[in-house]
């Protein structure tokens, strides 16, 4: 028989035992150990490089020598405000906004179904179906869309079979958003973005709706609200934080993407492409940095407005 049996406490020896005792007595030490490395990583690599970017954007390029002048100036930002550059900003923001609104509209019914009705294996299937596209390469998916949308592609083939070709032709003949084919139009770019970012909209909305108890919807109906009124007064306000969270994803991902619009779309640039061109072939790092600041500023304004409008009140 072990003499320790008489002891009140179970004894755990060794360094690990003493360490866990220490963490029990001083939880702050454990917290510091857990949080330290990731905070250091975020602080240095993430915030640090962001600040470096900000600083870069206040440098300028010497147009003759092509060298970067490391002096504080607003010259680069003034250049950003040129019509040709503002066009790029406006085009990108409009595209991001359209993609966001459209994906919210498509995502909502799917998320609602998943949160309210799907149970058991159906719910598992939902999660797999939503995330399956993310398992394959981004490039493969975008190139696949190029083929789908091409004039000889499967979409046009299907549309012609059901006799809706005139509709597509009418769409493509529209000014600005039209083009020679879906592959070379803003419509095509829009469809690709919509497809790419849809999962990022569905999941937060589903999570938000999951927290709305059924009894709340019952209560609304019980008090006389028709389904449409219940949607406007109860479901939508309560899902709004999820919609805003999803829109942060779709909005910022569209603002920053530079590959999809290059493969599918007209030849006009988006912010991401502009950054890519300026930092690469043009070697204009300050201009690239200034362009990079645009999505950050736009997102900040967007979140500020969302907060002002009470989007986070239901959190």
């Amino acid at each position: 028989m072990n003499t320790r049996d008489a002891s009140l406490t179970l004894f755990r020896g060794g360094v690990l035992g003493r360490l866990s005792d220490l963490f029990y007595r001083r939880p702050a030490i454990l917290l510091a150990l857990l949080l330290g490395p990731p905070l250091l990583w975020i602080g240095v690599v993430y915030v640090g490089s962001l600040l470096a970017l900000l600083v870069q954007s206040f440098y300028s390029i010497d147009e003759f020598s092509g060298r970067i002048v490391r002096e504080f100036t607003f010259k680069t930002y003034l250049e950003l405000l040129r019509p040709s550059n503002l066009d790029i900003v406006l085009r990108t923001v409009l595209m991001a906004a359209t993609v966001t609104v459209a994906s919210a509209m498509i995502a909502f019914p799917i998320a609602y179904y998943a949160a309210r009705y799907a149970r058991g294996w159906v719910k598992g299937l939902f999660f797999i179906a939503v995330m399956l596209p993310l398992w394959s390469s981004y490039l493969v998916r975008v190139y696949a869309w190029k083929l789908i949308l091409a004039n000889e592609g499967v979409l046009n083939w299907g549309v012609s079979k059901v006799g809706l070709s005139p509709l597509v032709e009418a769409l493509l003949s529209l000014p600005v958003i039209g083009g020679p084919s879906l592959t070379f139009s803003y419509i095509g770019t829009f469809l690709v973005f919509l497809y790419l970012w849809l999962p990022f909209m569905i999941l937060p909305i589903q999570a938000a709706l999951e927290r709305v108890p059924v009894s709340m919807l019952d209560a609304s109906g019980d008090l006389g609200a028709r389904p449409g009124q219940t949607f406007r007064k109860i479901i939508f306000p309560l899902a709004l934080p999820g919609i805003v969270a999803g829109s942060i994803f779709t909005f910022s991902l569209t603002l920053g993407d530079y590959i999809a619009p290059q493969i599918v779309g007209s030849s006009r640039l988006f912010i991401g492409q502009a950054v890519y061109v300026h930092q690469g072939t043009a070697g204009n790092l300050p201009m690239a940095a200034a362009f990079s600041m645009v999505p950050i500023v736009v997102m900040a304004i967007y979140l500020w407005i969302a907060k002002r409008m009470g989007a986070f009140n239901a959190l």
Partner: protein
Amino acid sequence: MQQKTVFISMPETTRQVSPSREASSPVAVSLAGVSRHFDAVKAVDKVDLTVHEGEFFGMLGPSGSGKTTCLRLVAGFEQPTAGNIIIFGERVDGVPPYRRSVNTVFQDYALFPHMNVVDNVAYGLMIRGVGKKERRRQAEEMLELVRLSEFVHREPGQLSGGQRQRVALARALINRPKVLLLDEPLGALDLKLREQMQVELKSLQRELGITFVFVTHDQGEALSMSDRVAVFNEGRVVQVGSPVDIYERPETRFVADFVGSSNILEPAFCERIGAPSGLWSLRPEKIRLVPEGLTDEADTITVTGEVRHVQYQGATRRCVLAVKGAELALAVPAVGVEPVVGRMAHARWHLDDMHGMKHV
């Protein structure tokens, strides 16, 4: 059918309904052969019920007995798979909840978290298009009725359980329903608050004259609040009657056992102790302990047995006596013969206190 009239003040519409009048009052809600089956599960099975206008009607049963599903059928959240539900003369099959003049107080209260208290209460009026000023005024009046005036601008999250319950009550009453449904209204409250709310609900119902139908698994609550009680078991109504009926004259073994506790005297046991043959229910508080050698009284049964357990319960002691192959439960008052575990004791009850039941 939606009620369009907007009431101005409560006192004009208040009226007294005495329980004795209810039997002859018009029918508020009636269920005829109503079933709700979820595939193989018979949540509600061939239920017939009649609730009279102005009645405080209790639906009592263990969890899963179908009482809540029954309430949801009346509210319109569920649709019956068979049978008819009639609310004030109108068949309501296929009528969605928002077109029924019935309102519900939910078990979890279901207050809207993105609205403050007054907006929650005014919700029904807002939906009906009542102007902001008018609906606020009425909501504040309602809140006064449930004694919550000072909480008008609070958020639901800042209220205690009892206060939330009052908000839910005010919200459900503002539409002037013909029938108010309450799903386990006091389930989430602590004992003291529960007792207080029982009294308040009762007086509120009397004041408004609205038919109240409530669901509970607490037999004490059902007995103390209801004018009549329906006891549910396994999707069926096993007995309907006044609280006194249900408690004093349970018709089945289940009711005798579920409503309060009861000694079930089996025929074989009756024979052994010299009681009239039959299946009887005998309430523990009807049995007295008597001193040894006490002379027999007319129309009583006296048995002798060993005291198995004694459980102190404040006002009474709960005591179990082993008598001729059966166990008798007794509620022994603080005065009189004191039971001692392991000793013999003599128990006596009057024949009138034995209530005959169906052999179910």
